[in-house]
């Protein structure tokens, strides 16, 4: 158990800049999920924390100790890999005990720790088996066990659930979260799956092109995304974006179709381009809002996802309760309290300036 601090981490592979200065403070026992599309630098960041990759500049501080430049083994971290990286020629016990054996722990202590972790994970019966003889979920547990027995300061998860099927993934997700809370070990979890990120993390780091676009709690990110990238990435189906122009002293945004939306306050200067964001589930059927033509209905049981187009041809997605939705014309209103307003040029979130 320890705190973790990243100080302005940058990383370049030759001329390619992968990380452009990421800073992060993680409290003791906190679960931080680093989420982003592939190639955003999230795995690189995790590997820098592990010591498998060397940062170009910046510092990694674990438990108050600057570990920059230390070998992975000297950082007291444990990592769960995407493909689990279980040694195929060792038994489950051997896999879990290997790190302890190298550290020269006495045999009874190793057996006690492995036994304890196996009990915790429900894999006591598998200790003599080889990884080849295990199912995906069991391998996942063994990989977790290998991390747990080390009793490290930090758990690092590198997309550990992406090799599992959908059902198992949901189950293991809950299990990892429960375990992490119970053990209270500070954790970093990398994933590209926003649902995984929302459900697992105390806080999320949304990565975009080597920057931390936003660091906040899942609900904060969902309710107040810092920019259009975060807004579009978190939430499913993705948020709708409609261009608009400010007027009336920055108090009204006018859409391309002529619809004028009163803003909660002064959002900027007249004539400034903004992007109005609205989540599909916040759109309501009704008149006096947007006129859309529904092209495709995806029924999901209690609700349906409607893919529609506005008059100017731009797409719009709505998630409406009920099942009786048909294709054709549909009026949709935009509840003012659910709007997100972003600057069109920078993509940053705009808050009313009173």
């Amino acid at each position, binding site marked *: 158990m320890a705190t973790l601090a990243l100080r302005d981490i940058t990383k370049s592979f030759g001329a390619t800049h992968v990380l452009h200065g990421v800073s992060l403070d993680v409290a003791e026992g906190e679960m931080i999920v680093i989420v982003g599309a592939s190639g955003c630098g999230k795995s690189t960041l995790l590997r820098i924390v*592990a010591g498998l990759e060397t940062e170009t500049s910046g510092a990694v501080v674990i438990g108050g100790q600057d570990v920059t430049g230390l070998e*992975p*083994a000297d950082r007291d*971290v444990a990592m769960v890999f995407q493909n*689990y*990286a279980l040694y*195929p*020629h060792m038994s489950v016990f051997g896999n879990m005990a*290997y790190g302890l054996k*190298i550290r020269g722990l006495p045999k009874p202590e190793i057996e006690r720790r492995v036994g304890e972790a196996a009990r915790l994970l429900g894999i006591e019966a598998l200790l003599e088996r080889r990884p080849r003889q295990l199912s995906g979920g069991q391998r996942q547990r063994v990989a977790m066990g290998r991390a747990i027995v080390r009793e490290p300061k930090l758990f690092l998860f590198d997309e550990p659930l992406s090799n599992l099927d959908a059902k198992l993934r949901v189950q293991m997700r809950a299990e990892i979260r429960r375990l992490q809370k119970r053990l209270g070990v500070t954790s970093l979890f990398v994933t590209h799956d926003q649902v995984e990120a929302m459900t697992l993390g105390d806080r999320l780091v949304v990565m975009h092109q080597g920057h931390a676009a936003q660091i906040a709690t899942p609900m904060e990110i969902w309710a107040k995304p810092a920019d259009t990238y975060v807004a579009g990435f978190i939430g499913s189906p993705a948020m709708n974006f409609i261009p608009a122009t400010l007027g009336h002293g920055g108090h009204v945004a006018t859409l391309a179709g002529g619809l004028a939306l009163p803003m909660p306050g002064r959002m900027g200067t007249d004539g400034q381009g903004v992007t109005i964001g609205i989540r599909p589930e916040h759109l309501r059927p009704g008149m006096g809002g947007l006129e859309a033509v529904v092209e495709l209905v995806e029924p999901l049981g209690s609700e349906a996802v409607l893919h529609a187009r506005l008059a100017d041809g731009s797409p719009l997605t709505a998630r409406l309760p009920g099942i009786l939705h048909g294709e054709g014309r549909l009026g949709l209103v935009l509840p003012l309290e659910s709007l997100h307003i972003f600057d069109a040029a920078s993509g940053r979130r705009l808050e009313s300036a009173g």
Partner: protein
Amino acid sequence: METAEGTRARNRRAAWFTHGWLALGVLAFAFPIWLTLMGSTHDASTIGRGDVPLLPGPHAAENYAQAWGVGGGRYMGVPAGTMLLNSLVMALLIALGKIAISLTSAYAVVFFRFPGRMLAFWLIFITLMLPVEVRIIPTFQVMVSLDMINTMQGLVVPLIASATATLLFRQFFLTIPDEYVEAAKIDGAGPLRFFKDVALPLSVTNIAALFVILFIYGWNQYLWPLLIVNDRSLETVIVGLTKMIGGGDTQNEWNVIMATAVLALLPPVLVVVLMQRWFVKGLTETEK
């Protein structure tokens, strides 16, 4: 069902064809060995007359006893027992030495970043294209200078580096996922530990397969032992066998020669038979 009958007939024809073809292949391989085996059970005069016996004769025991304990042929040479031991020691040293050297050099080339790494690899790779015969005179010169003529070291050392085996192990090591290396790093295993605990156990089947190939390679060495060893107490069985065959001025003791040939056959056959399971596994299976 006429079509079913037609299919069956066609399958039968195909089976006959494949089996016939296989039988022909077996015959081509087995017949010379059968001749040798039969020849080793007759006395010298039977074969000397020009007969080629196809059935066993009554002199097996004495032929093998002579071959094993006394030897025969032009120089009334070295007993097969000694030659077999020499061959065995040489083949084992060559096979194990080649494996040890190529395993470690492949490990270095794959898992370490050091200046000149690719240069080292390419130098190893290029020597693949040079057969032993090409460098045999300079190698001989080196052995003379090192005073290794007529020694077991002289027999083994020039043959102990193997580009092929290095390449094979390199290819195998490249298939070991990076995550194993990283997991081991996080577990705190250094390079030697990783070699001993992970790389080596994973290569066991490859090592076994290579051992079979290299043992036979070593066993069958002819030109180099012929050059480097004059001391007949160090003679290998393959060289000794050819030395038993005369130039035509005297009658060859074909019965003893063939008995020695059969004895020379046994160790490689034994190695193949005993290690067959591993051999096939190592060449076909990738356990990941």
